[in-house]
C-alpha cells in the first residue's frame, strides 16, 4: 500500500515536471496503418483487417528513450470496428452485428501508459499497460510493442492476445464454430508529431 502511494505520488510529480518537455504524437492517418485480428477456429482460420486506427501518445519528453517506468506518458488508441474487413461481406456483417455489436460499441479502445522502454538494435521495445475496451467491457492488458524511429515520428508494431469471453462476446456453438475465442491482435501504425497549436 505504501509502495503504491509512493508510486502514485512519484507518478504525479513526474507528470508535472515532464509537462514542459512533453511531446505529443498522433497516429498518421495518411500512412500505411494496419490493424489485424486473427481467428484460428477448429474448421476455419480468417483475418480481419482495417486501416482505421487513430489516437495519440503523449510522451513526457521530446523523444523516446530507454528507461524504466514512464508513468508520465499517456496514450489512447481506437479502432473503428465497423471498418473491419474479413474478406467476406456476410462474415463482416456477423462480426459487426452479432459479435462486436458495433452499432452500440463502435470502437475498440486502448488507453494507458508506457511501463518500460528498452533499447533494441532496431529501436525500442516498450511494454505498455492500459485498459482495453471492447464491446463495452474494459480489461487491463499489457501490450508489448516494437518501436522504430521514422523521421520525426515513429512506427509501432504491437501484438497481444484477447479472449472474446473476457469482453462478454458470445460465440454460438450450436452450428459451426468458425470464430475462435482466442483472438490474436496485431497493430502496425505510424505516429507523427502533433500539429503545433
Amino acid at each position, binding site marked *: 500500500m505504501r*509502495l*503504491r502511494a509512493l*508510486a*502514485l505520488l512519484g*507518478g504525479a510529480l513526474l507528470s508535472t515536471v515532464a509537462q514542459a518537455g512533453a511531446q*505529443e504524437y*498522433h497516429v498518421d*492517418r495518411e500512412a500505411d496503418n494496419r490493424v489485424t485480428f486473427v481467428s484460428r477456429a477448429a474448421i*476455419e482460420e*480468417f483475418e480481419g483487417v482495417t486501416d*482505421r486506427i*487513430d*489516437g*495519440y*501518445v*503523449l510522451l513526457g519528453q521530446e523523444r523516446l528513450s530507454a528507461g*524504466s*517506468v514512464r*508513468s508520465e506518458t*499517456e496514450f*489512447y488508441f*481506437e479502432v*473503428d470496428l*465497423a*471498418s473491419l474487413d*474479413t*474478406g*467476406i*461481406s*456476410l*462474415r*463482416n*456483417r*456477423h462480426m*459487426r*452485428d*452479432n459479435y462486436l455489436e*458495433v*452499432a452500440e460499441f*463502435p*470502437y475498440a479502445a486502448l*488507453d*494507458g*501508459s508506457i*511501463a*518500460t522502454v*528498452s533499447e533494441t538494435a532496431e529501436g525500442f521495445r516498450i*511494454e505498455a*499497460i*492500459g*485498459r482495453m475496451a471492447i464491446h463495452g467491457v474494459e480489461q*487491463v492488458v*499489457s501490450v508489448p510493442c516494437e518501436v522504430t524511429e521514422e523521421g520525426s515520428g515513429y512506427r509501432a508494431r504491437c501484438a497481444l492476445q484477447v479472449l472474446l469471453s473476457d469482453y462478454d462476446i458470445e460465440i*454460438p456453438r*450450436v*452450428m*459451426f464454430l*468458425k*470464430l475462435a475465442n482466442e483472438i490474436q491482435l496485431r497493430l502496425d501504425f505510424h505516429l507523427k508529431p*502533433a500539429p503545433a497549436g
Partner: protein
Amino acid sequence: MRHSVVGFAIGALLIPSMLAGQERRGSWQRSEPATEVPVTVFHSTQSANLPTAETLAKGEILFEISHRFSPSISEGADALWGLDGPVVNRLGLSYAVSDRAMVGLLRSNLADNLDLQVKLRVWEADAGSGAYMLGMVGGIAINPELTDVSAFDGESLQYYAQAILNVAPVPGLALGLVPGVIHNVNPGSGDPESALSVGLTGQLYLSQHVSVLGEWNFSEDNGIDLAHDAGAFGVELETGGHFFKLLISNSVRLNPAQHMGGTPFSFDPDEWRLGFNVTRLLSF
C-alpha cells in the same frame, strides 16, 4: 531483465489506479465519425425463390446449388417423402461487379432453362421507422429442351424484370414486395405471351444464425401447366459464408422465368414438396 519485470509490476499496479478518473491531456480529437454500418434488411440475396434487394460486396462470388424434389411429401415412406427423387436441380454462379450490382448465370435442368440476370441495389436507408432497400432484377432465359428451333428463337427466349422493395419495420423482421413482368411466360406453347406477377416474402430472424421464411408469388392463370400461385416456407441457417435453406413448396420451377409464371400444383398439403437451397460466398 529483472529491472523490466519490476517496472512492469509497478506499472501494472500503478496504471489502472492512475487511469481511473484521469482526464486525457493530449490535444488529439477524433477527426471523423465511425464507419457507417451498412443497411441490412434480408441477410441473403434471395428468399426461397424470390429475389431480395441484398447484393454481394464487390468481387465476391456466390455459388448456389438448389433442389426441389419432384415427388410430393404425401407420397410417404415409399418415396421417402419425396427424397427418392427425381429432383429439379439448379446450379448458379453470381459475381458482384460492384457493391451494388451483380451478374448471375443460373441453370435449371427443368427444360434446361439457362438464365442470365443482372441485379442492382438501387437505394437503401435506415430511418427511425425501419430499414428500407430498393432493388431491381432483369434477365434473359433460353429453354433449349422445349423447342426444335434455335434457343434464341422467339418461342424459346424469355425475358423478365422485377422490382424489389424490402422493409425491416422492426429489427429481426424483413418483408419484401416483388412485382414483375415476364415475356413468353410459357415457352414452347407456340404463343409467346407476357404476364405479370407480384411476389410477397417475409423472414423472421430468430437468432444470430436461424430464421424462418415464407413467400408467395401471385401470378396470372397462364395455362394448365401454370394454373396456381407458387408458395414456399422453411427455415434458413446462416454461417460465416453459407446459407442453408430447407424448404417446403408447391413449385419445382426454380429459375426466375419459370417461377414467375406459376406452378401446376396447388398449395394443398398433398402437393407440398421438399427442397433446399445452399449458397456459398467466395472471395478471391
